[in-house]
């Protein structure tokens, strides 16, 4: 509607609604803001109550979550030369909490595990999921809808129900606490989603191109690679980002099936919070570092979100 056509009453109403939306958004983001805010607080302000809103931000908490340190006994001060020879982040930690950085902490390793497992499972999911989606979209077979429904139901199972036999199976195959074990599990967890969403994308590609290519003597596989894949890139990318987010966030399986070698960040951080106990700054920093990739991807994905969260049921 043209703005000029609005009456004064409508214009006031409009302003009120916009104001309301802004207020709601601000209130809504407070918990997130609070974590980011806490992660940048200097050590001595973190436990202050009522909480201080304004302060000089520091990255000391981030350095603490990435490193292992030993506290210096109270009153002990390092010599000036020693402080001067420290790396910048060592000096920062020393000045903030009077601790000495000993080595790299556990987080980098867990973060790397998360990245390896998530990328591994996403790549496999996309490869076999796109193949299956193409097969379901173009193939003619009896009971196709039943198979598709079967694939969907595997995703609806509560993970806690499947987790007992999966645990037993992994134990007897020695897959517990291995990267490949979690990659397989996350692939199985995501592939049903990928097939449904990708099938939707492939259904939208006109079949005529493929028929023309087949007439021209392409094999079916060549058609798939050279005609279908290039047209499905957006769909593939969106599906991949969704699979990435789902696997990145997964907790129940990772918690039960990884202890150390292949432990991911969501499995590690809650346990670590218990250990950190006193160090809420480091906990907040770890939380933010972990949430960041998913937040960035959500922003990239925003146009496809509805389609993804409904398994392709709603195509906007």
């Amino acid at each position, binding site marked *: 509607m043209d703005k000029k056509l609005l009456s004064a009453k409508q214009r006031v109403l*409009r302003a009120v609604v916009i104001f309301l939306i802004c207020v709601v958004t601000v209130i809504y983001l407070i918990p997130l803001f609070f974590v980011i805010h806490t992660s940048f607080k200097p050590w001595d302000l973190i436990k202050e109550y009522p909480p201080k809103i304004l302060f000089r931000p520091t990255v000391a908490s981030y350095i603490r979550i990435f490193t292992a340190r030993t506290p210096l006994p109270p009153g002990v001060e390092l010599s000036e030369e020693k402080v001067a020879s420290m790396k910048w982040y060592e000096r920062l930690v020393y000045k903030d909490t009077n601790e000495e950085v000993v080595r790299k902490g556990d987080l980098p390793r867990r973060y790397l595990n998360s990245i390896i497992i998530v990328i591994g499972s996403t790549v496999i999911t996309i490869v076999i999921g796109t*193949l299956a989606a193409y097969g379901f979209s173009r193939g003619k077979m009896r009971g196709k809808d039943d198979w598709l429904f079967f694939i969907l139901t595997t995703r609806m199972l*509560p993970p806690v129900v499947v987790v007992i036999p999966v645990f037993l199976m992994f134990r007897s195959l020695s897959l517990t606490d291995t990267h490949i074990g979690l990659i397989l599990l996350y692939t199985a967890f995501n592939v049903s989603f990928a*097939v449904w969403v990708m099938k939707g994308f492939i259904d939208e590609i006109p079949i005529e191109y493929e028929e023309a290519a087949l007439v021209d003597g392409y094999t079916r596989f060549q058609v798939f690679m050279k005609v279908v894949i290039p047209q499905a890139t957006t769909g593939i990318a969106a599906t991949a980002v969704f699979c990435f987010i789902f696997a990145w*966030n997964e907790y129940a399986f990772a*918690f039960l099936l990884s202890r150390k070698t292949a432990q991911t960040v969501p499995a590690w951080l*809650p346990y670590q919070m218990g250990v950190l106990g006193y160090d809420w700054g480091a906990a*907040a920093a770890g939380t933010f570092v972990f949430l960041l990739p998913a937040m960035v991807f959500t922003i990239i994905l925003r146009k496809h979100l509805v389609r993804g969260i409904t398994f392709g049921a709603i195509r906007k």
Partner: protein
Amino acid sequence: MGKNVDENPGVALEKHYRGVRDKTLMRVFILPTLILLIAINVFPLIWSLFLSFTDYSAKMANVWGKNPAWVSSQNFADVLTNPEMWEKFITTAKYVIMTVAGEMILGFGLALLLQLDFKGRGLITTLLVLPMTMSPVIVGLMWKLFYDPNWGMFNFLLGLGRVDWIQDPARNLYSIVIADIWMWTPFVMLLSLAGLGAVPKYLYEAAEIDRASWWFKFTRITLPMVSPILMLALIFRIIEAFKIFDLPMGITGRGAMAPPLLAMHLYNVSFVTWKTSYGSAIGYIMLIMVLAITLVLVKYLNRAKQ
């Protein structure tokens, strides 16, 4: 959909390629997915169905006839007659009702507000959607920090004293409910927005000409048109809330003070006290309940679509 393909004049589709029929090739395309799902989803399900009829503990050595030993439906009878289990069912039901009601009302309300077209609407929608794609367990940790009775900002902002939201069994269910509503309201909001956007404009224009009231337009046009999509959101949310596990793990952990939710209990039974087969029976009962709820709701969904 399948019929369209059949009717296509694609004679080429039926051709043979290097001895492999096209139809066979399509099946080969589907095969890896099916094999994976059967190995990692179907096979475990059958296994746990078997275990639920036995007496088995994963902590002890496998001896056929003793561990697992066949006990027929004993585990199911034990689960359903145990008053402690009923407490878990009731708490979980309370949790589902509170979170889903909160999310549906707030999510739909926000979507109604966001129907207004203004500058920055896209940005605000994106910002509001952020919580939804975060890891539930990490969202739990975030709220744990936020609730902290000594220095967290939750009590401070609401002007409450040092109320303990995490350790106190009278309150911690609500602390999880609030975090769940925070996290999943955007889900309902997004679906509602999609539904509201799909209502044909001419319906409103026609009502405008008839000088219909706002209330009339809302109850006679908007609600009936978006009800299928609201049903869809409801189904998704009920299933997810029913099996909630990671969010409470982040906020309260699974200790003695944690609220008695089903999935958490299942975890404790199976992997802390190692009553594997009893846990499998609980798992199967949960599965049957999820399926029953879904089937009933899908029926309503189909009715709403008509």
